[in-house]
């Protein structure tokens, strides 16, 4: 374990986590610490189970082995009611935004407030407008989700995720498929929300530039293992071939360009029978 993250100060700790789906090991005995008040990023190529990790932390999936503690509570041993009250203190930003499509922006942001509090409508209005102002979309309150661009939808989802003033927030690929302006806006938002609200952020991403710009600590995972970890500076200077390939985006390296297949020439000359 790297010394720069002390388990004492971590809000979320993942210990010896193993998770399999079918015969595939998605995670193989990994341990991570997510420090309070910091932005910790998990990087890795698509399909390495980054979203799965967030679902494990959120208690939506169960690990085969290992424990995940949030605020010193083992997520997977909580009773349902306790898990739900823990989730009220966690925000999650889904890749798609996951906005409720039958409600407009305003009602989407008001949704968690209406479900979990008994505040009067006037106070809900104030809170919703404050959250929307924070993401710059107060003027878009009457739009329906299908009228929003991808970047706007994610910002609305972000406003919704912070509606209950959570202690932590999880971002699932916040930059994927965004134009440079939206990316810039999201980078700025994630950083400033983290600082002003004192949040603990867990960010899953494969966008090297944006992630290294705001993360305090980075884990790089591949093939179910942690292949590199450290501050963005340390990651950039890592001598690991694997980390280097990921950070520079080289087409071939430890991660092969070709999906495993039999010999090319043999394959072309064979009868074409399916195997």
């Amino acid at each position, binding site marked *: 374990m790297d010394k720069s993250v002390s388990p004492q100060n971590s809000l979320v700790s993942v210990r010896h986590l193993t998770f399999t789906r079918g015969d595939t090991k998605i995670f193989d005995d990994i341990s991570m610490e997510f420090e309070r008040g910091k932005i910790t990023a998990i990087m890795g190529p698509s399909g390495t189970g980054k979203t799965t990790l967030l*679902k494990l932390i959120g208690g*939506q999936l169960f690990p085969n082995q290992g424990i995940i503690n949030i605020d010193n509570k083992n997520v997977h041993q909580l009773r349902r009611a306790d898990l739900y009250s823990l*989730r009220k203190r966690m925000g*999650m930003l889904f890749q798609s935004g996951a906005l409720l499509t039958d409600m407009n922006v305003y009602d989407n942001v008001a949704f968690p407030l209406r479900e979990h509090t008994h505040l009067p409508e006037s106070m809900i209005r104030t809170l919703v407008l404050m959250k929307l102002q924070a993401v710059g979309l107060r003027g878009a309150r009457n739009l329906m989700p299908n009228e929003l661009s991808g970047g706007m939808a994610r910002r609305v989802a972000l406003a919704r995720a912070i509606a209950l003033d959570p202690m932590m927030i999880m971002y699932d690929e916040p930059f994927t498929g965004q134009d440079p302006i939206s990316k810039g806006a999201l980078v700025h938002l994630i950083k400033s929300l983290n600082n002003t609200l004192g949040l603990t952020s867990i960010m899953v991403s494969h966008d090297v530039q944006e992630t290294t710009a705001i993360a305090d600590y980075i884990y790089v995972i591949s093939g179910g293992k942690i292949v590199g970890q450290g501050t963005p500076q340390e990651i950039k200077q890592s001598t690991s071939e694997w980390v280097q390939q990921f950070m520079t985006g080289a087409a071939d390296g430890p991660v092969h360009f070709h999906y495993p297949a039999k010999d090319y020439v043999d394959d072309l000359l064979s009868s074409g029978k399916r195997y």
Partner: protein
Amino acid sequence: MMIEFLQTLGKNTRASFTKLGRATFFLIQTVSGTASVLPRPRLLLKQMYSVGVLSFLIITISGLFVGMVLGLQGYYTLSDFGAEETLGVMVAASLVRELGPVVSALLFAGRAGSALTAEIGLMKATEQLSGMEMMAVDPIKRIISPRFLAGLLSMPLLAALFSAVGIIGGQLVGSGLLGVDEGAYWSQMQANIDFQDDIINGVLKSLVFGFVTSWIALFEGYDSVPTSEGVSRATTRTVVNSAFSILGLDFILTALMFGDD
């Protein structure tokens, strides 16, 4: 060959039972979730609107035509025996006992059931259900139970509407076109249709159909593979399985309700 066949058979049987188990568990959660819908009647009203009110048109038009056909066919057969005066009884009994609950349930499965499956399936595919869970909102209580309750309550009302419109359709054809005495049409009906035996049993049937159709539709959506192909398959399964269940259950219920007593 034989071994392979047995393996497939075993695998499919096991998959069916597993699914049945999931469906039962889902039903228990859904039904117990209805308790939390009652303090929030607006959730229910919204679903009653989309499940029930939006089915009004298809139910009314179908009911009218079914009643008109019954009027025609009934008249042709009954007039052979000089019994065309009893056309009202025939039309009303057919509708209230059988066609009302059954046909409106089939239409309901096609119109509202498929829509429910597609809606829930897409909510799953776009992570809305997952997102709700992460916001500590139970999607069963918030999304599924209100729709289930709405389906259950709408079905008897739609069946009643179907039968009522059908009876008017039969009257339009019978006494409007074919000259059956209007007074006879209504008074024979009044004298021979029993509230308990015919109407209440019809309502019970449609309650059962509403229960089963809503259960199937919601479960198929909730259990669907969250892709466009998965949702389309689930929608098809909803309509097919609902139709089978409605027709099969109708036979059983008819045998139980209308035997000699």
